[in-house]
Structure formats: C-alpha cells, structure tokens
C-alpha cells in the first residue's frame, strides 16, 4: 500500500484516508459473512464453585457482560435461579484458565473476582465484588489493583486466609511495559497481589510476587495458615523454560520464599493456556498437578513438591489428558481431569486416602460437546467435581 500512495495526488490521498476509515468502520461493526454463518457465540462455559460451611454450594459464571451467581442446597442436583453480581454489564474475559473466581469468608461472605478486558489486545483489569448477606446483594465492582494503566492485569486468583483477609493475585505486565520504554528485554510477565483487611471494602498493594511468569496460564493460590499464602504458576526460567515456580508470601506483602518447583525443561516461546493446581495435606505435603509440553514427555503430571525437586512424579491419564485440578482434605487427595477420545470428552478422577501413596481411578462422566475445565470442590471430607458442559450445564459429580 505504501509504495502505491507515493505516486498519488493529494486529492487521491485524502480519498484514501476517508476510504480507509470507512473500511475500518465496516470491519469493526460487521463480522464477515462466512463467520456469521458458521459461528454462534453462546454463554461462557468457565465456571467456579465452592461449598460454604453449611453445605450450600455457590457458583459463578458469566453471560452477556454479567457475572451470575447461583446456589444449590443438594450439591448441584438443583440450582437456584441466577442473580446478576454486577448490575451494569461490562466486558468479561471468561474462558478456560480465565474463569471468574469465587471464595467464601469465615462468616459466609461471598467474594468474587473476574477479568475485565480493556480496548487494547491482552489488556485487562481485575475486578472484585462482595456480598455480606449471602448473595442477596453485591457491592458495586471495584478494581483490585492500584495500577490503572491499560496493560495486562489478568488471570485473577482468589483466596481467603484463616483470619479472613482476602488475597487476589494476577498476571501483570507493568514491568514488561517499563522495560519496553527503556528498550531492554523482559521475559514473560509478572505476578502481583493485593490484600484486603476489611472484608473487601478496600485493597492494599500492589505487591510484586515475582518477575518472569508465563503470560497466559492461571495461577494456583492456596492459603497456608492465618497470614500466609502459597502460589504456584507457570514461569519463564532462563532462557525460555516454561516450567513452574512456587512462592510463599505473607499478607503483609512480603515474599517469604520463591523457588523453581517443576523440572521438565519445556523450552517454548508460546502460550500453553494450561495452568497448574496445588494443595497442602494435613502432614504438610505439597501435592501438585501441571501440564508440560516438553519434548517426548508432553502431558499432565502429578507430583509432590519438595525443595529443589519433585517426588513421585507420574503422568496422569492418557495422552490427551488436560486441565487437571487437585484438592486435599486431611490426608485425602483428589485429582480430576478431562480427556478427549476422538468422539467425546471423558471426565476422570483419582483419589488417594493416604496422602498420595496409593490411588484409585474413577470414570466420572462424559460430554458430547464443549466443556469447561473440571473444578474440584471440597465439602467436609468429600470431593465433588463441577464440570460445566454445553449440554449439561453446571453438572456436579461426587468423587468417592
């Protein structure tokens, strides 16, 4: 185009500018016919749920610019009608690793986070809303981070400590943007977090947890005592190794520990869109599941994270196993993942009653159509799996 315009008259250049803006307007407003015919967007499948202390199951997902809340008194067999958490519709990123999040406070408070994409590609804000009356009303959404640049703040993760403090972590590109200005290089993105001491009325931060995270995978966040939290995420170790890092931090904003936690040596400059899960059992063992695409060993893995190594690392499921979740109650450990077999998607679970020494595998469900990642839920000593599928929405199965 540029060589062409060089030889044109001024009048023609003006016509070109007008025409260009007309063309742009056209492409913004009207999707091409071929796409219109073949594709119809439905409600987002990404859903998250949690049991409260009384056994009510609460769940969030998104549709048409709203985060929707539902509850169930019978572990997901029947669901209440949906309630809109954000009264004003807004742009919401909700798919796969970027699902909305839900956590409960010690007095039954409902805390919800999600990512609101901004105009520029890859950008977003982490949003938060709370209900102090068991979901009857919600506060207007607030933005969790103090940084308001139109850059990446996405892949929110949410946890509530034993003392009731709310911790939100996310993938943040402020350091990358800064190094771009200085024309230097920066690997990946960063992980930041913020803390609320007043049941979500306000947040303080933004605290940097680590430089050089992967840009496009969920962060696994688990409370580790009254004032400490562990985070486990896909990192970018030098020069381009997308294995996982583990950090322990305090709600006062200090990082207590940072270490490499998985050692598969996956060299890749790309986006796995495939985040990990972690939980600590009653004996203090850290159980984890994650995905690696490392040459010759691509797949989902389970292992126990010990200092500088992984114990009992093994492959989970078949070759197509994907998007595993993990939960712990006491010494019991559970995994859930999905596998596509060429015809349909299968949901599998594994349970260990002895802290990960012995496992039994259970086929849980199958779906003929699109499905969300499975999400493991804990109620007392029992495990359940939320699996939101297009044909059977908000399905919950027990994992015994």
């Amino acid at each position: 185009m540029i060589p062409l315009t060089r030889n044109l008259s001024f009048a023609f250049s003006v016509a070109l500018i007008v025409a260009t803006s007309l063309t742009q307007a056209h492409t913004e407003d009207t999707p091409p016919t071929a796409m219109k015919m073949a594709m119809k967007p439905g409600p987002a499948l990404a859903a998250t749920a949690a049991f409260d202390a009384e056994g009510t199951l609460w769940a969030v997902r998104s549709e048409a610019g709203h985060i929707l809340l539902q509850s169930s008194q019978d572990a997901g067999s029947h669901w209440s009608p949906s309630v809109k958490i954000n009264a004003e519709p807004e742009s919401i990123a909700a798919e796969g690793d970027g699902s909305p999040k839900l956590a409960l406070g010690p007095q039954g408070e409902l805390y919800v986070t999600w990512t609101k994409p901004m105009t520029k590609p890859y950008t977003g804000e982490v949003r938060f809303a709370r209900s102090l009356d068991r979901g009857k009303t919600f506060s207007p959404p607030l933005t969790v981070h103090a940084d308001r640049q139109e850059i990446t703040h996405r892949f929110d993760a949410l946890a509530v400590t034993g003392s009731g403090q709310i911790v939100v972590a996310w993938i943040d590109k402020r350091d990358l943007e800064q190094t771009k200005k200085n024309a230097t290089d920066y690997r990946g993105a960063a992980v930041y977090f913020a803390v609320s001491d007043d049941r979500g009325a306000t947040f303080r931060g933004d605290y940097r947890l680590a430089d050089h995270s992967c840009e496009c995978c969920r962060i696994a966040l688990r409370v580790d005592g009254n004032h400490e939290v562990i985070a486990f995420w896909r990192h970018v170790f030098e020069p381009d190794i997308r294995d996982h890092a583990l950090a322990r931090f305090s709600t006062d904003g200090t990082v207590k520990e940072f270490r490499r936690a998985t050692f598969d040596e996956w060299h890749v400059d790309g986006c796995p869109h495939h985040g990990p899960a972690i939980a600590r059992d009653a004996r203090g063992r850290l159980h984890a599941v994650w995905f690696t695409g490392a040459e010759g060993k691509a797949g989902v893995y389970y292992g126990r994270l010990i200092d500088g190594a992984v114990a009992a690392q093994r492959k989970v499921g078949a070759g197509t196993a994907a998007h595993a979740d993990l939960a712990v109650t006491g010494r019991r450990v559970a995994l859930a993942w999905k596998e596509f077999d060429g015809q349909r998607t299968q949901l599998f679970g594994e349970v260990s009653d002895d802290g990960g020494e012995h496992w039994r595998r259970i086929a849980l469900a199958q779906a003929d159509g699109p499905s969300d990642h499975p999400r493991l839920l804990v109620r007392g000593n029992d495990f359940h799996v939320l699996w939101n599928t297009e044909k059977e929405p908000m399905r919950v199965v027990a994992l015994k």
Partner: protein
Amino acid sequence: MKRFIFSLLACGLVVVAQPAAAVELKPFDENSLAALKQEQAGRPFVLVLWSVTCVPCREELRLWNAWSNRYSAIKVVLVSTDPPQDHAAAQHMAERYADASADPRAFASDYAERLRWSIDPAWHGEVPRTYFFDAAHHAAPKSGLVDAAFVEAWLAKNSPTTKSTKGTR
C-alpha cells in the same frame, strides 16, 4: 468538482477495501485439514495455529505472512484457535498482521478438543503451533515461536525447483 472527488473516493474505496475483504477469516472445521491435504496432494504446505491471547503469535503471524509472500509456491494456512466469541478480535489481529496470501481461518466451533484431534491428537492446544507438511504430507510439528533459520531452510528445501519470487513487496 464534487463528482470528481466522489469518483476519486469510489476509486480509493476499491483500492483499499480489497485487502481488508481478502483477510476474511474462513471457518476451519474438523474436515478442513483432510480437504487441505486433498487440495495440496503431492505438494508441501504449512499449517500455523495461533490465538489472540498469545503474545508470541503476533510475531509468528508477521513472519508467516512474509514467508507466504516470498515462497508463494508453498501454501500457508493461518488458523485462529479462538472460540467464536473471540472471532472479532481474531479478525482484527489477522488484518493487522497478515494478508490473503496466508489464507487466514478460525476454529469453526468451540469444541476445541474435536478440532485439535482432527489436526493432531498429540497436540495439547499450545500456540503458536506449526505443522510442516512435506510433499508426502508427513508432518513435523513445532510448538512455540518458530526458529527463522529452520523455517527458511525448510521452505527452501521443500519449494518446487522453479522457486517463485512473486510477491516480494
């Protein structure tokens, strides 16, 4: 004069609108790869999978657009793996980094597992993901931003002997 400007405008519209219309994303469904193989029987081709949420994919698109112009004898197909709700964004990104020479398409349904299986059951969905199909259609998959030296060598090796330099702009 008014009529003169109008005709210039109309002329400009034709010139400008053409590339935009040509970058229209076509649907990629579970039969698309088989159809491509049939269409490219006995010829090498390259299948590049990308997504709007993937930062290295911008560079991947830029590179493949340039290569598809330079090595116009080898078919290159750029496929967005984004679900239908992200196709408007995919369309914008494709328009920004590619032109019609790289045959841009997008996953035709949000049953991504099924579409991925139709390409390669061993692929877990990471992007960019590139399949280098030789003339016998044996595929060499690569995950992550491609290595330019590797691609240049592959394209040179697999290009027909009468190497085309058409489209160097």
